């Protein structure tokens, strides 16, 4: 557009000012952002049409129906169509209930798991890789133990010498001892591969073994 370029009569240390009008596109941009802001506030906080952040999270986790947010068809851009993890504890300022965490007493009702030892060479190689990435820091490069117990001897703290008892510990962890539950992190095949890799470490006698802990199974 054309500006008039009318000089104002002031002179500040040689600097002069024109008195051009505000660029219309600039002024409109300003108005639009203000109107948008007003609409935004009303949408979320006056008419309660949009989900606030915790509602948005609960939608994402599949805990509440989208329609209850007052926004039909709304889906969080980060929502995923895969399997949903278990629902989180109730939102808000309440402490999480202890229901979602393991109780310390051995619970009998836990369904027994029954997996077969993996024997495929490729999968065992993958198990070694998963071990190196996730387990080595505490259990040693060859399972000799360190922070965690020795995995190569016949002494068991949380198991009975069976393959399935390894799988169970890897899956659920031992929170009181600082063993992480890997079920939310590793997909099932990786979990079985690494458990099989560890089962195969038993009896390998690596250097620098950690002293035995727990009870002896087998010989």
């Amino acid at each position: 557009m054309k500006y008039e370029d009318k000089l104002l009569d002031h002179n500040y240390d040689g600097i002069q000012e024109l008195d051009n009008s505000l660029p219309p596109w600039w002024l409109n941009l300003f108005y639009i952002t203000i109107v948008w802001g007003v609409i935004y506030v009303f949408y979320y906080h006056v008419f309660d049409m949009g989900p606030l952040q915790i509602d948005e999270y609960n939608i994402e986790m599949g805990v509440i129906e989208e329609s209850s947010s007052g926004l039909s068809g709304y889906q969080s851009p980060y929502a995923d169509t895969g399997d949903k993890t278990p629902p989180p504890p109730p939102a808000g300022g309440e402490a999480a209930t202890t229901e979602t965490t393991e109780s310390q007493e051995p619970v009998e009702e836990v369904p027994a798991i029954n997996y077969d030892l993996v024997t495929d060479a490729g999968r065992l190689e993958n198990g070694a890789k998963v071990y190196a990435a996730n387990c080595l820091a505490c259990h040693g490069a060859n399972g000799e133990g360190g922070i965690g117990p020795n995995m190569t001897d016949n002494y068991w703290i949380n198991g009975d010498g069976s393959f399935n008892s390894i799988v169970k510990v890897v899956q659920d962890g031992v929170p009181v001892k600082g063993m992480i539950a890997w079920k939310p992190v590793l997909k099932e095949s990786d979990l079985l591969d690494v458990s099989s890799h560890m089962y195969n470490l038993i009896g390998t006698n690596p250097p620098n073994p950690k002293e035995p802990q727990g009870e002896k199974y087998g010989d």
Partner: protein
Amino acid sequence: MAVETFYYDNRIVRNFGFATLLWGIVGMLVGVIIAIQLYIPAFSFNLPWTTFGRLRPLHTNAVIFAFAGNAIFTGVYYSLMRLTKARMFSDTLSKIHFWGWQLIIVLAALSFVFGITTSKEYAELEWPIDILITLIWVVFAINMFGTIAKRRERHLYVAIWFYISTIVTVAVLHIVNSLEIPVTLLKSYSIYAGVQDALTQWWYGHNAVAFFLTTPFLGLMYYFLPKASNRPVFSYKLSVVHFWSLIFIYIWAGPHHLIYTSLPDWAQTLGTVFSVALIAPSWGGMLNGLLTLRGAWDRVREDPILKFMVVGVTAYGMSTFEGPMLSVKSINALTHYTDWTIAHVHVGALGWNGFITFGVLYWLWPRIFQTKLHSVKQANTHFWIGTLGIIFYALPMYWAGLTQSLMWKEFTADGFLQYPNFLETVIQIVPMYIVRSIGGTLFLVGTIIGAWNLFKTAKAGNLLADEKAEAPALEKEYKEESGYWHHWLEGKAVHFTVWATVAILIGGAVEMIPMYMVESNVPTIASVKPYTPLELEGRDIYIREGCNNCHSQMIRPFRSETVRYGEYSKVGEFVYDHPFLWGSKRTGPDLHRVGGKYPDAWHYNHMDDPSLMSPGSLMPRYPWLIEDDLDTSDIAAKIEAMQTLGVPYAEGYSSQALNDLKAQAEKIAASLKTQGISNADPNKEIIALIAYLQRLGTDIKGSAVSENATK
């Protein structure tokens, strides 16, 4: 009226100018060092004084307050005298201001290196230095308002409006955000806790960007750009509208640093809508700068000063478009905690602050030294190397930020995180870190060339220490020929200052007062308890080592976050956190739920050498934590300070704190021994840090998990 003769003081301008160059080189050099540390952890030399966590605040403070700060004073002193037709109010105050500011910088550098820090970003300095800053700032304010009071020019030019808003707002920001309760001479706790502290901090932090890195530089632009291009300013109307809207709206935007955190939604919303409304007021400044150059673009091709200013103003326009974009929830969900933010601030710092500064220095240096610039060719070289540096800095950081964020959020078809190991997402962007450090190095090389050029110019010329000028004195009785409002505001500095102050107080008050007063903003959680004495000491080590520079403690309510870290952070969990430690960048993973995740010995080994536990980790080693004894001499004072701030320790608990501390330390040492650390010593600093880390986020977890953190 009789014409009066007076003299401009160029010596103070020269002093601030040299300080700008010196601290610019220092600050950028530290920046290059920490950029290299991010891909060569050994570059921290395994020494406490040179780790990333301590040098990063040194870098940010040196660049903001030492480089940009001295640049502001250089340009303000030069332009203010000429715009008011008066020498500075007091040469003594000018000197006190100069030497006081340099003293603050030296004290700041020393304290950061020694781990003396409050942890609050850009306000890390401890309370004695905070008081010194306040005093020196008041000296600057008296000197400036005194000069304005004795002016020989009736009207205040637009540059001075920006200077006034800077002086007033920085004072308000600094004082409110630095309210802290001293424990010892070098240690204090913020009077605010948790979400209140976070909101106050980012009201301050964002408005440091607004009123330390934006308004003073806009003022410099309004003086030096028309001078250098010899063109009239494009639009007086635009400068009025964009000035008032800018200072009023900017103050509200702080919460955009806390989108999708425990900050209540209403405050986040205010941060978003006011940030978006900031586009036009900010761009008003860019337009007035660029459109002033209409008819002078042919000169931009030849004149390096104009090149610096054009790129500077353009970078300002880019930053101020990007800021509002990053404040929109869906975009912020992606960019928060990533290197995108780092790219964003460096477009502003290198492009806008850096290039405007160089333009100003190149313009005024030959004038105060009465000679020609030593080498126009070198100035052009500086410009091109600097521009390349900005590009090589910003582009890889955008790439890195987006890449890492998408990796954090990616799920496999079976519903697992695609990259459950945080470290994978870091290793992925290491090449970008390498390119970034090259970009930063280029910018530093440019700065050194510029400093050399100006040094040679000064050597060749003579400082015109007292520059003679003449102007008639102001008439007492004054008849205004144009509009009433214009006169009422711009002819009266006191009116103007009062209204500018009102404009900048509103937004902060509306956001912060409800957050302090209305209890429903912070629902209490019964199971959240104060830290034990040992945990408190551990927390202070966490602060001292600057862990919050790389680790957040704020899990956002996204599935990708809760699957990776655990339950999202609740506002009630932070009520005893003086100061808050939410962090703003994840170079390492979030730590809010790290308590009980790993055995004590894992942390022990990890702090000694992170790569033992996480092969390939970029975290520096902290061997001194294992060697140094924990200083427990202040524990009683710390507990009492916390009690003063309302943390509910039992009456008289401070006398018993040391015993409790020792008992807990013994327990942790015993647990370490069972986990293979045979020489674990309960008196070492590492024990306190482990206690703190094992406590983090466990108050609302199930009891089984928190058993692990040895209580």
